[in-house]
């Protein structure tokens, strides 16, 4: 009895400490309590600290995992990592606690007569290979599809691409990074001809101003925000939060400027108008390094199945562009953006002042946007007009959400249109892939097929009859799950789900494969600043858990492609990476050799002559530049970046009398995306046990709603019941509600709209029209 009581008191005390640590972490992102962590270590244990990247967001913090007797028992920030310098956020700090969750998938499960039956992994992989082959034989190779993840490792993404595009010969491969940063990719490619940010996190140490565009970094990229706060306190750097909702980032900023959803397009143009009007254009930079173009407008929103769009760029000149901006004077834009003329002029002045260094940060707010490519282009326009780019403390910086959205999804290329180098539509890129993969070049199709949303529409239509998802949970994360869940449940499609924990997606699977978690396998991730990070396997996984890459290889062998996958189980990560690295040889994207990656806490590419390139396109730092030029945007044939004429266009669905509120969705600091990992970490789950709907206090008062009251949020597509949250975590503007999407019991994506950017095909989760009623 005494022991039980003591245990209970110890547990309660532990919970009290954890609650305080969580509260502290939300107020001071990156705060560390190393003493407490050390106290929890086993006494007399022979602890070994092993380095790797954090499992969660795209910041890519370095972690040290304490391993004792084959078990992971502690986590701390890696002081040698220049990303986080020893800091971690609350998720990173507790990450290993999910491994031992009671419902961990430890063995393969095969659905037989409506029930899941534990099955030896070899037998389950036989079933997967046979079903995939049988489907291809019966319906053609484009009847099978794979949907992977920005959480897949580089070798996993590489093997998936090689299997689908090189071995099978279908481009039916896409990934969940389509949902989070495809607009960043198309933004980079259209403006610079080369993907990924030109700068690095060291920009934080140099910038005078940080302008965040629709980006709640305090919760989503807390360690970077912590570094920004440090610069704010240390040397007076300023943070300007430009957003549609007041968040913890707004509260910690020097200035919070709110705008009406979708009008960021107009405000960005107004900033450019002001820069030109006030003579703040860096004329030499623009004359030497910039072209001007316009594209098609009124593109639609991708709401219909089989929607297709191809932009047609036309060259214009500076005077055309200047005339176009006449529609975007601060006075005109203030009327519909709800941003004051004063604030627009303030933003323009910050960017235009030649004596200030400015970094722009953004993530989902700009990317999950029906004009996501355009708004990315428009922020680049601001930096190109002022020449504030590719220099320490000056530059546009697109942050990623997932740990290897850059390394795997973008660089390996697990999108339908991508190859490990270049795109499927380019004959030279196909030839290079065919040569390295040792396959006939004609086997790699030259046309992209299904992007994420269209892939699940094809499942619903019955066009795709076999789909294999890996490290992702689309039936929580897709927009309009009210359509795609019933689609995945149809008998017409055989569903294979490879994951670590059961999810609403694995609930509809015919075969569930037990995947190894992050530290139970070796791997490589690539973060937002082009940093490739390697880690060695640290602990054994339970049961028959197996790395996804190896499961792909086993299935490939069973399908008769064994000669293309000659890797060994023990060293497949190393063998695959060395093969993959050939795709990026050269000064523009050279990757560090594995022995360097094993030694260092991550290395930024391009890695040339033993040195990372921190600022691309600037001859002072980037050996790939033409040395005769000060800047060289070598992604474009003429070395010039493009300023795009992109107009403001409204969102596809706006509030009206029937559905009077904007719905904005997003994340919270405690949970990683759909919560399949973090909801299994007790301290995080207790800190944020369920989703909620935030309302403005005036809207709540008008509707007679009190905090915690159950509300039904309804759109034209579906509804979701959640408790009201008023004046708690965040504060939406009047006429807007916000719901986090991590909670599988409150599926807000049943309500969202599957409209997407016609160029990037990335859905807009930030804007649709809903009504709110008492449930």
């Amino acid at each position, binding site marked *: *009895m005494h022991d039980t*009581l003591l245990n*209970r*008191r110890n547990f*309660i*005390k532990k*919970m*009290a*400490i954890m*609650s*305080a*640590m969580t*509260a*502290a972490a939300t*107020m*001071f992102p*990156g*705060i*560390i*309590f*190393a*003493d*407490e962590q050390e106290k929890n270590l086993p006494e007399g244990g022979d602890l070994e600290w092993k380095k790797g990247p954090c499992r969660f967001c795209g910041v890519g913090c370095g972690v040290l995992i304490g391993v004792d007797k084959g078990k992971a028992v502690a986590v701390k920030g890696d002081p040698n990592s220049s990303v986080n310098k*020893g*800091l971690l956020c609350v998720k990173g700090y507790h990450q290993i606690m999910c491994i031992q969750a009671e419902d961990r998938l430890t063995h393969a499960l095969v659905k037989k007569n409506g029930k899941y039956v534990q099955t030896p992994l070899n037998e389950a992989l036989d079933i997967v290979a046979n079903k995939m082959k049988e489907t291809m034989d019966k319906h053609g190779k484009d009847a099978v599809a794979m949907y992977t993840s920005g959480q897949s490792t580089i070798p996993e993404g590489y093997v998936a691409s090689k299997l689908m595009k090189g071995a099978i010969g279908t481009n039916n491969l896409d990934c969940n990074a389509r949902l989070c940063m495809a607009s960043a990719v198309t933004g980079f490619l259209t403006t610079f001809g080369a993907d990924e940010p030109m700068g690095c996190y060291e920009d934080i140490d140099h910038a005078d101003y940080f302008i965040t565009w629709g980006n709640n970094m305090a919760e989503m990229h807390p360690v970077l925000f912590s570094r920004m706060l440090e610069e704010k306190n240390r040397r007076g750097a300023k943070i300007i939060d430009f957003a549609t909702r007041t968040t913890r980032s707004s509260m910690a900023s020097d200035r919070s400027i709110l705008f009406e959803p979708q009008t960021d397009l107009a405000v960005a143009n107004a900033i450019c108008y002001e820069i030109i009007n006030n003579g703040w254009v860096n004329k030499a930079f623009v004359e030497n390094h910039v072209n001007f173009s316009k594209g098609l407008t009124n593109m639609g929103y991708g709401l219909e199945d089989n929607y297709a769009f191809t932009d047609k760029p036309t060259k214009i000149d500076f005077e055309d562009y200047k005339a176009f901006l006449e529609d975007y004077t601060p006075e005109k834009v203030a009327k519909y953006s709800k941003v004051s003329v004063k604030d627009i002029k303030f933003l323009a002045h910050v960017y235009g002042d030649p004596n200030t260094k400015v970094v722009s940060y953004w993530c989902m707010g700009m990317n999950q946007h029906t004009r996501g490519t355009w708004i990315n282009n428009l922020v680049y326009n601001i930096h190109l007009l002022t020449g504030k780019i590719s220099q320490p403390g000056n530059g546009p910086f697109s942050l990623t959400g997932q740990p290897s959205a850059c390394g795997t999804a973008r660089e390996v290329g697990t999108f339908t249109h991508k190859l490990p180098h270049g795109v499927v539509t380019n004959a030279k890129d196909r030839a290079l892939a065919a040569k390295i993969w040792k396959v006939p070049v004609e086997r790699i199709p030259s046309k992209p097929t299904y992007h994420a949303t269209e892939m699940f529409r094809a499942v619903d239509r019955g066009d795709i009859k076999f789909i294999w998802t890996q490290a992702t949970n689309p039936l929580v994360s897709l927009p309009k799950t009210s359509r795609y869940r019933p689609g995945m449940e149809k008998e017409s499609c055989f569903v294979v789900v490879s994951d670590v924990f059961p999810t609403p997606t694995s609930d509809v699977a015919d075969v569930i494969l037990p995947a190894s978690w992050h530290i139970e396998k070796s791997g490589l991730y690539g973060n937002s600043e082009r940093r490739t990070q390697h880690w060695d396997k640290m602990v054994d996984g339970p049961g028959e858990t197996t790395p996804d890459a190896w499961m792909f290889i086993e299935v490939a062998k069973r399908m008769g492609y064994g000669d293309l996958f000659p890797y060994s189980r023990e060293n497949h990560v190393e063998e695959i990476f060395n093969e993959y690295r050939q795709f990026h040889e050269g000064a523009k994207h050279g990757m560090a050799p594995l022995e360097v990656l094993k030694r260092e806490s991550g290395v930024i590419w391009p890695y040339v002559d033993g040195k990372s390139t921190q600022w691309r396109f600037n001859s002072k730092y980037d050996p790939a530049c033409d040395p005769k030029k000060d800047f060289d945007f070598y992604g474009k044939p003429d070395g010039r970046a493009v300023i795009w004429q992109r107009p403001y266009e409204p969102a596809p669905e706006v509030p009206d009398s029937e559905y009077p509120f904007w719905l904005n969705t997003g994340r919270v600091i405690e949970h990683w995306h759909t919560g399949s990992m973090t909801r299994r970490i007790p301290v995080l789950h207790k800190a944020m046990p369920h989703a909620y709907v935030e309302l403005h206090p005036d809207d709540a008062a008008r509707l007679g709603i009190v905090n915690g009251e159950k509300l039904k949020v309804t759109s034209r597509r579906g509804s979701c019941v959640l408790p009201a949250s008023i004046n708690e975590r965040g504060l939406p503007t009047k006429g807007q509600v916000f719901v986090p999407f991590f909670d599988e019991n409150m599926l807000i994506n049943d309500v969202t709209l599957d409209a997407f950017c016609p160029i990037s095909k990335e859905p807009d989760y930030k804007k649709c029209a809903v009504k709110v009623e008492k449930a």
Partner: protein
Amino acid sequence: MPIKSYLAYPQDGKKDVLISELLNISYCDVIPSENEDLIIVVTETENQKQDDTLKATIEGLDSLKLLAMVSGFNTPKN
């Protein structure tokens, strides 16, 4: 038997003083942050009266700027 956790904010430049003063108080665990001016304080007392006294003692420290309670639990005596 209350167990409570607090965030204690020191006066400017007084973090080390506050840590040292808190460590001298019984029924009180102290977990300082390594990189911020913030200290977690966990109290474990026998009864409500003792808890109230302890809280008043902590709040009386000159080096303390603000004491914010995060969680409070009460466990049965037996």
